[in-house]
């Protein structure tokens, strides 16, 4: 078996069967990253020594008859998760010199499960973007077509897994940043329910929207990693204290009888024809598997993008105030006075998109505008949430496209922020309502992957994973590799 084509589940089994060691498989991935990594620019930091040390430890665990399905399996972390003693840049010049002094809870948990850290992946700066073009470390390329974007903000994680430089990678999703890159790179991208996974150590963008998740090769892989990541964390006040099911065990649940709501508003103008056709065909595929299709309308859903672009900037404008050159991170040279320290440090440290969002956020929270913008947006958020609630009274899951088009060319949408924002038109709703959602590969349009999005009610991860798994038992889109990386 070629480990480069192996899933997390397969690598785990192979390690436990002693077909190869963790050190060996880790070396294979490190070599592959060295060969192919630069072209894609998927990694900010490759942690070679650490990876081999993790692997050696995992091998000892396995040799002692201990460990679980993830022991010794390599992974990459999005560079938004703090990793103790390792550069954690968040894709920004502001943190280009920031060596985190602690591990995020997600990092601790996956390390405790025995996973091996290959490195930190590139991302849109401070998670703000849908194309991974705003990173201080340069754009990431889509392995399916090097002239195109992999999506964002978890673009590096997506490119790494799609090119099999890592078997799985973590990501974060605030407005679609796991699902959208997964769709553009042919991966299974899972965003859990808000509060399911701890945000402690995950650099904050928009606190009421951010969630950690995975970019994986399959629903089975997503289930394995998610089970290890998820769970209550006392250090995160928004973390939910509810037991984590054995997601892998629930995968075989049949799709027969599943009531699927097709979101009417998602199939209107703006959806590219090929993408629309592939998604419709996939939904029909579910009907063939015994599911029932129901047309549902969520009339306020079209307001999700403007709602998001008030709420997210508002929260981020506050979350990013701590970057001031005083205690860590970038600091401007020879500040004349305090004001100069702040203005120049932040002016130099942040890129244009981040500055745009900070200013938007500052504006919508400011005196005289709070009611009209921020308060109004939070009310519209309630309306959207209510639309979802009503829909889920009639159906088990909702389906639609993940993105309006397949991967677009690098530079094609950077001219106008709104054009870029509209890439998240189908994904944002789930973040506003805190709902779990997954994107699974469902076709190729002119050689580029297209994703099917499945959204469920709060804490329906098992059902979503089972539906995705059923799809992946019937089809092999998720096993296709980009031609250059096959």
């Amino acid at each position, binding site marked *: 078996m070629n480990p480069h084509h192996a899933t997390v589940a397969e690598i785990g089994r192979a390690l436990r069967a002693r077909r190869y060691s963790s050190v060996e498989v880790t070396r294979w991935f490190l070599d592959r990253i060295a060969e192919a990594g630069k072209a894609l620019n998927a990694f900010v930091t490759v942690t070679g020594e650490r990876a081999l040390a993790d692997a050696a430890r995992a091998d000892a665990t396995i040799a002692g008859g201990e460990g679980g399905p993830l022991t010794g399996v390599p992974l990459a972390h999005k560079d938004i998760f703090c990793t103790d003693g390792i550069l954690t840049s968040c894709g920004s010049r502001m943190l280009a010199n920031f060596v985190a002094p602690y591990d995020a809870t997600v990092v601790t948990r996956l390390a405790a499960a025995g996973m091996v850290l290959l490195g930190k992946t590139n991302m849109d700066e401070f998670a703000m973007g849908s194309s991974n073009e705003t990173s201080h470390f340069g754009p990431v390329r889509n392995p399916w077509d090097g002239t195109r974007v992999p999506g964002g903000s978890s673009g590096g994680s997506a490119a790494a897994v799609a090119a099999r430089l890592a078997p799985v990678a973590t990501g974060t999703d605030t407005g679609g940043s796991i699902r959208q890159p997964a769709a553009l790179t042919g991966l299974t991208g899972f965003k859990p329910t808000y509060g399911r996974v701890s945000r402690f150590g995950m650099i904050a963008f928009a606190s*009421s929207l951010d969630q950690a998740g995975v970019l994986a090769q399959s629903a089975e892989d997503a289930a394995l990693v998610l089970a290890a990541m998820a769970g209550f964390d006392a250090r995160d006040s928004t973390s939910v204290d509810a037991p984590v099911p054995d997601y892998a065990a629930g995968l075989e649940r049949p799709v027969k009888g599943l009531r699927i709501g097709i979101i009417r508003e998602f199939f209107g103008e703006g959806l590219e024809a090929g993408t629309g056709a592939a998604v419709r065909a996939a939904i029909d595929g579910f009907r063939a598997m015994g599911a029932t299709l129901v047309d549902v309308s969520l009339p306020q859903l079209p307001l999700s993008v403007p709602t998001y672009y008030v709420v997210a900037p508002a929260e981020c404008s506050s979350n990013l105030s701590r970057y001031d050159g005083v205690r860590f991170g970038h600091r401007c040279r020879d500040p004349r006075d305090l004001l100069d320290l702040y203005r120049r440090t932040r002016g130099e440290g942040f890129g244009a998109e981040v500055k745009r969002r900070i200013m938007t956020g500052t504006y919508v929270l400011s005196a005289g505008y709070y009611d009209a913008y921020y308060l109004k947006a939070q009310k519209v958020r309630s309306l959207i949430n209510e639309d979802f609630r009503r829909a889920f009274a009639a159906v088990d899951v909702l389906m639609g496209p993940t993105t309006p088009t397949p991967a677009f060319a690098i530079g094609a949408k950077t001219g106008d922020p709104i054009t870029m924002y509209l890439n998240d038109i189908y994904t944002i709703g789930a973040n*506003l309502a805190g709902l779990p959602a997954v994107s699974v590969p469902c076709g190729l349009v002119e050689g580029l992957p297209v994703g099917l999005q499945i959204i469920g009610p709060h804490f329906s991860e098992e059902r979503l994973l089972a539906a995705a798994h059923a799809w992946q038992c019937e089809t092999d889109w998720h096993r296709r590799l980009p031609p250059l990386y096959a």
Partner: protein
Amino acid sequence: MFSRTGAIVTLTRRDVESIAHLARLEISEAELPVYVQSLSAILAFVEQLASAPTEGVEPMAHPLAGQVQRLREDQVTESDRHDRYQANAPAVEAGHYLVPRVIE
């Protein structure tokens, strides 16, 4: 400040300078018009919210309704790690983080 003509929102240079100051961001002369334009476009875009039917609707601050704040026991759990934390600080002296002198 800002004018509303249908869905058109135009910020002035002054507006953007003032926002940039509140946010402590230095924006160069050259960049200013670009931000005026893009911020105006964003605000025009979100104007759509104004017509949403939100009479009597409660704002949604947290995605999971009914969740309330957990309370932590009053215990000291942290110890002195300032050496570690200050190792990478931009400017430190005598254990203090340095900033240009502030006169009160």
